[in-house]
């Protein structure tokens, strides 16, 4: 699968005098899992907001499957650290939220929500309100809500950032399973280098002032990955290289 799904050409974004995103070009292959790491404030979320169409870039263009989508919305799945589940809807109704917000929710939408929830371990919670769920379960529901939009590209902005270490590990493995099953393309922001390496095929390293991609690293670690991966010499080496990029300046 070497088809390009997403292509950015010379995208820039300023807030007043500050350049949040310096000229950025990249292309993302269909079906790949690309992690973006970088310190807080380096423009990772800004990059996502431009891709999602929430922000119009000051320059450059965004193409999805060859089609120009710069500044337009409605073409990606999008998930944040905050689960953004609405407390007044059940799990099932939260999963079908995108449909509700764009058209009438059909019985097919509901059936799919139930199928996905059942398949990925939340079948017993379909009629629960979000308040009854743990943090990890809530993020799963948020991810399912993103999944059933049927967008080929999923933008995940530090989705597990608020979870405890154990839950986060579970969620990472869970996410890899869903990604394998569904064949979506994932862009995944994190500031956790371990997480970026554990999940991705490719790591983009960003640096601040001005925000830009300073390294584009292919992740050769074999799949499926497990606890062993975290102690693999190749993993350690890549990790130290990225740590250097993040904390030790250039090269």
């Amino acid at each position, binding site marked *: 699968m070497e088809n390009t799904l997403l292509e950015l050409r010379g995208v820039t974004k300023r807030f007043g005098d500050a350049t949040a995103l310096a000229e950025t070009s990249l292309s993302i292959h269909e079906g790949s899992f690309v992690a973006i790491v970088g310190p807080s404030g380096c423009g990772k979320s800004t990059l996502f907001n431009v891709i999602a169409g929430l922000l119009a870039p000051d320059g450059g263009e965004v193409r999805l499957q060859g089609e120009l989508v710069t500044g337009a919305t409605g073409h990606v799945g999008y998930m944040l650290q905050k689960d953004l589940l609405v407390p007044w809807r059940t799990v099932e109704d939260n999963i079908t939220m995108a449909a509700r917000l764009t058209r009438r929710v059909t019985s097919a939408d509901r059936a799919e929500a139930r199928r996905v929830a059942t398949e990925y371990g939340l*079948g017993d919670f379909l009629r629960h*309100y979000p308040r009854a769920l743990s943090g990890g379960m809530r993020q799963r529901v948020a991810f399912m809500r993103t999944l059933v939009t049927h967008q080929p590209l999923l933008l995940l902005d530090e989705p597990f950032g608020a979870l405890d270490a154990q839950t986060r590990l579970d969620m990472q493995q869970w996410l890899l399973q869903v990604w394998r099953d569904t064949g979506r393309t994932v862009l995944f922001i994190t500031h956790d280098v371990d997480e970026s390496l554990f999940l991705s095929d490719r790591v983009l390293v960003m640096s601040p002032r001005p925000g830009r991609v300073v390294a584009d690293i292919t992740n050769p670690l074999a799949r499926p990955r497990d606890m062993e991966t975290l102690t693999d010499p190749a993993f350690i080496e890549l990790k130290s290289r990225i740590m250097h990029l993040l904390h030790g300046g250039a090269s």
Partner: protein
Amino acid sequence: MTRKLLRNVGVPVLSLLLLLALWQGIVVGFNVAPYVAPRPWEAILSVTQNWSTIWPLALGTIRETVYGFLIGALLGVFLGVVMAKIPVLQRSVYPVLVLSQAVPIIALASPLVLILGFSITPKIVIVAWIVFFPVTVNVVDGLSHVDPDLINLARVYGAPRWRTFVHIEMPATTTPLFSGLKIGATYAVTGAVIGELAASEGSSLALYQEHANSNLNAAAVYGTTMVMTAIGISWFLLVVATEVAATPWQRRSVARHYPWRRARSEASAATSIVSSLSKGES
């Protein structure tokens, strides 16, 4: 369940009884003359004995309270939504609304009766005048505090603004909306009574009380006050009950089975069975 019922109903009833006991204690203890302040029991008796006179009057007050409240609530929501959505209106209309509440409502009642006559209309206007304001303030506040990330999420999905409003912004404002409605409900009956007092003609609960007052019939004065208070409390409780019914997610972990959703519930029960079966295998 019974414990909860005991706490939710028993405790308020108990404090009410204590209040009556305190009243009785003071009146008896200080030997207060019956034409100054009656015993609670006399006040209650004066209501029950004159029930056939009082009930139609109370019905009038209830009607004014309810109509005024509903109109005020609708107006309040409408103004709140419009002001939250149109910043120019918020800046220009908000001060006028504050002004409307600074005018002493009693000073407003007589001119309103002059303009609108001795009908039910001026009373409804006064009640609505009082009720709309807390509703508007809370709706504006609620709408402007909806999580912007949630609204952005809807935008990412490509949601049109009206759907975002219906499915995200309005439900997110439920709690402040009901806060406004509850405040309005508390004051509604006061507005109705002020309106009745301002209209010196016709028959009404407030005028019945005035009449009792000029006859030095303290039992009837206090009894009528109790009726008015009961109307106010009942209406408040009805609003609270509506809130409870409208916001099951605030108390329940699992959604209730609604008959009109039975088909869906059965389907989800089926998937639960499937999932528990597949779990059993692994």
